[in-house]
């Protein structure tokens, strides 16, 4: 593998830097892991497309040197579905935030999973709406504070990967910004998987989430994230009590199922053969 500095020059739009993210934000770590994962997957730069929604994390698309599509709030997967079906050879990575993906984009998320379309969803989960200044999202843990939940939220969060699995996704993994090498491997494995892949990347937001919930600065948040992380292998030997409050990392589920786009184009080919006979 080429040194990371070299990769940055090829796959980052360095003229667009510095980025807009706050000091201590984990989005840059996840974005770099994504770039390394694309290198690892060995894709031609021309075939890679980054699609994103609206929010802090979705600004990553603008810094990546591919064909990049910064869409509307929550709709990234629906745009990506059209693009993939129109040009199946494209390798599409869809970057979304927790609110973008699971609140306003929830419908598109479950239906992309149901179709098992070959898209790689990378959800940067910082438990909060960052760009609008710290409102609670469907992934904000119960009881945590936000500007729209000053007394702590009473809403139970989604278990995002279980939601994806239940809806029909065929690959689900979780990584953390505190362990970028593992995150990179997980994104690469998701990319290699044929079907709808979901990678939940936990990322600290010290400004809009950490400060309000007394979790310290970026360093403390990353440290806590690392300490709470348990690999899926280790977790399999732990009971529910020991797992309480832990973050399980690694490939949470994977299975083989027919992929939608391939099925569709097979059908088209059969039809054209039928017509030519």
């Amino acid at each position, binding site marked *: 593998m080429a040194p990371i500095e070299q990769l940055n020059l090829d796959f980052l*739009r360095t003229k*667009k830097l510095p980025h807009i993210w706050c000091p201590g934000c984990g989005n840059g770590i996840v974005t770099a892991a994504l770039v390394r994962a694309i290198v690892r997957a060995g894709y031609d730069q021309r075939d890679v497309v980054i699609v994103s929604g609206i929010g802090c994390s979705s600004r990553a698309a603008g810094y990546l040197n591919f*064909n*990049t599509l910064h*869409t509307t709030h929550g709709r990234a997967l629906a745009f990506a579905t059209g693009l993939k079906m129109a*040009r199946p050879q494209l390798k599409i990575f869809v970057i979304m935030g927790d609110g973008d993906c699971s609140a306003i984009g929830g419908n598109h998320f479950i*239906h992309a999973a149901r179709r098992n379309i070959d898209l790689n969803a990378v959800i940067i989960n910082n438990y909060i709406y960052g760009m609008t200044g710290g409102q609670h999202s469907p992934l904000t843990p119960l009881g945590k504070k936000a500007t729209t939940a000053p007394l702590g939220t009473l809403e139970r969060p989604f278990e995002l990967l279980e939601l994806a699995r239940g809806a029909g996704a065929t690959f689900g993994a979780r990584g953390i910004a505190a362990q970028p090498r593992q995150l990179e491997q997980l994104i690469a494995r998701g990319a290699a998987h044929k079907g709808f892949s979901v990678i939940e990347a936990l990322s600290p937001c010290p400004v809009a989430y950490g400060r309000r919930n007394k979790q310290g600065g970026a360093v403390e948040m990353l440290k806590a994230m690392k300490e709470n992380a348990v690999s899926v292998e280790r977790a399999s030997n732990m009971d529910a009590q020991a797992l309480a409050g832990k973050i399980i990392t690694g490939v949470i589920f994977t299975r083989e199922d027919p992929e939608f786009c391939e099925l*569709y184009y097979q059908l088209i080919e059969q039809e*054209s053969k039928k*017509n030519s006979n």
Partner: protein
Amino acid sequence: MPDVKPVLMQGNEACAEGAITAGVRFYAGYPITPSTEIAEYMAEKLPRLGGVFIQMEDEIASMAAVIGASIGGKRALTATSGPGFSLKQENLGYAIMAEIPCVVVNVQRMGPSTGVPTAPSQGDVMQARWGTHGDHPIIVFSPASVYETFYLTIAAVNLSQKLRQPVVLLLDEVVGHMREKVLIPEMGKLMVEKISDQVPPDWKPYDDKGLTPLVPFGSGHFYHVTGLYHDEFGFPTGEPAVVSRVLDRLHNKLEQYRHEITFTNYIGHKEPRVGIVTYGCTVRSARAAVKKAYWQNRWPVGLLSLQTIWPFPDKEVEALARQADIILVPEMNRGQLVGEVERSVRGQAEVVPLNRYDGEMITPDQIMEQLRRWLP
């Protein structure tokens, strides 16, 4: 082999067939009355032509998928009706801002809200103009017959590609559901050249110098597409000078090509005393009234039918107002386009609305009754 063949077709079918003739190979939609036949026709035909049909989870996703497919290089179309058209507005605005070609068909039904799903209405005229937020331009066509639906759909697809501008096709429920003769040309005869095949060496995705083709993703030209105000390469900017330039660019495109966008038709007396201005299925009743009033009774009456309603054909309407004393504007709503007519007429004639909004068409007799107010 003849160049054209006559076919008996439903309006919605003609819309779908027109789209296919113009090279549309991607359809995403969601079932809604009275537009569903368009989706069904596409579901039947597109896979056999190597194209893509996909029924999305909702109207919003359909609009998004159409834009995504267009960026992938496929000519794309979606069809819906009032409630679905409301849901599509945000992403329609995105396509305008990001200059992604696409065609949105709205087979109008009676609103507001769920309204009367099977009744005709022309209630979405202003929504088609201003439905999405921001000070945007839009092209809207309103066919009066199945034949016009076929050809205006082709024009919509081609103009959308050429100008990189979404085009809305406002069908009336009765036009969508009626059956009439259409002359269908041989496949491929009417399609315009694909401009994206010729990429100039110094290509920029958003060139200020004029029309620039959309180069599909995956072709090796790396650029950014966003709904934010953007520079010539698509990157976000809030620079005041660039922001106003982008908005001017979007509007100037349509002004510059107005002659290719504006379709109107005039029949009747050369120097009419009463001019009728209307669009969509109401043109049919107006035409029947003009036949009786002018061809039979020789009354000084004329009909200016508007196939293009946005950008509003103000010059054509003003030209009529210079001749006529009265401009009658029949519409199946409480008066929407009549305001534009008044603006264009600039006091040179009296503008009289004729409105019907009970879920029924305006009849020729209703128009005749009005004409008798001013004529013998």
